[in-house]
C-alpha cells in the first residue's frame, strides 16, 4: 500500500473511466477501456492484491479489449454520445 501512488492512479482511473464513457467513437472507447484496465491492474498491485492484478493484466490486455474490438468490428464505430 503506497498511498501516494494510490492517489495518483486513482485519479488516472477516474479520468480513464470518464474518457471511455465520453469518447464519441466506439473503437476509441474500447482502446481507452484497455487503458482503464491497465490502471486498474496497477491499482490492484499497489494495494497488494497481486493475484487480482495478474488476472486483470491478463484479462484486460489479452482478452477483454480484443473482445471489444471484435464486437465493434462487427457492428459499428458510430455513436452519438
Amino acid at each position, binding site marked *: 500500500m503506497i498511498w501516494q501512488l494510490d492517489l495518483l492512479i486513482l485519479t488516472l482511473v477516474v479520468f480513464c473511466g470518464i474518457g471511455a464513457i465520453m469518447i464519441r467513437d466506439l473503437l476509441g472507447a474500447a482502446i481507452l477501456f484497455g487503458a482503464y484496465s491497465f490502471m486498474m491492474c*496497477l491499482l490492484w498491485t499497489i494495494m497488494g492484491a497481486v493475484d487480482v492484478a495478474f488476472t486483470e493484466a491478463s484479462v484486460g490486455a489479452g482478452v477483454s479489449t480484443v473482445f471489444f474490438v471484435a464486437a465493434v468490428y462487427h457492428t459499428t464505430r458510430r455513436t452519438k454520445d
Partner: protein
Amino acid sequence: MNDFFLGCSLFLGGLMMLSLYRGIFGPTVPDRMIGVNAIGTKTTVLLILIGLLYHRLDMFVDIALAYALLNFIAVLAAARYFQKRKGLHYEKPY
C-alpha cells in the same frame, strides 16, 4: 533508495497522465492507440517499481512479464480493425 523509487514511480505516473491526454483527446483513433500503447509500456515499468517498493520483486515480476507479452495484443487487434479496410473514411469518426 525506496524514496527514490517512489519518486520515480510518481514521475512515471505523472507521465502516464500526460499520455492519457493523447488517449482521451487524441483527435483520431490511431492517436489514442499511440497514447494507450505508451501507457502500457509505462505500466510494465511501474509494475516492477511497485514490486521493488514492496520488496517482493520476485512476485511482481511475473505480472510485468505477462504485461510485456500481452500488452500489444490489444493494439494489434485495434490495428487489425483498420487493416481490414474499415478505415476512417469507411465510417466517419467523430
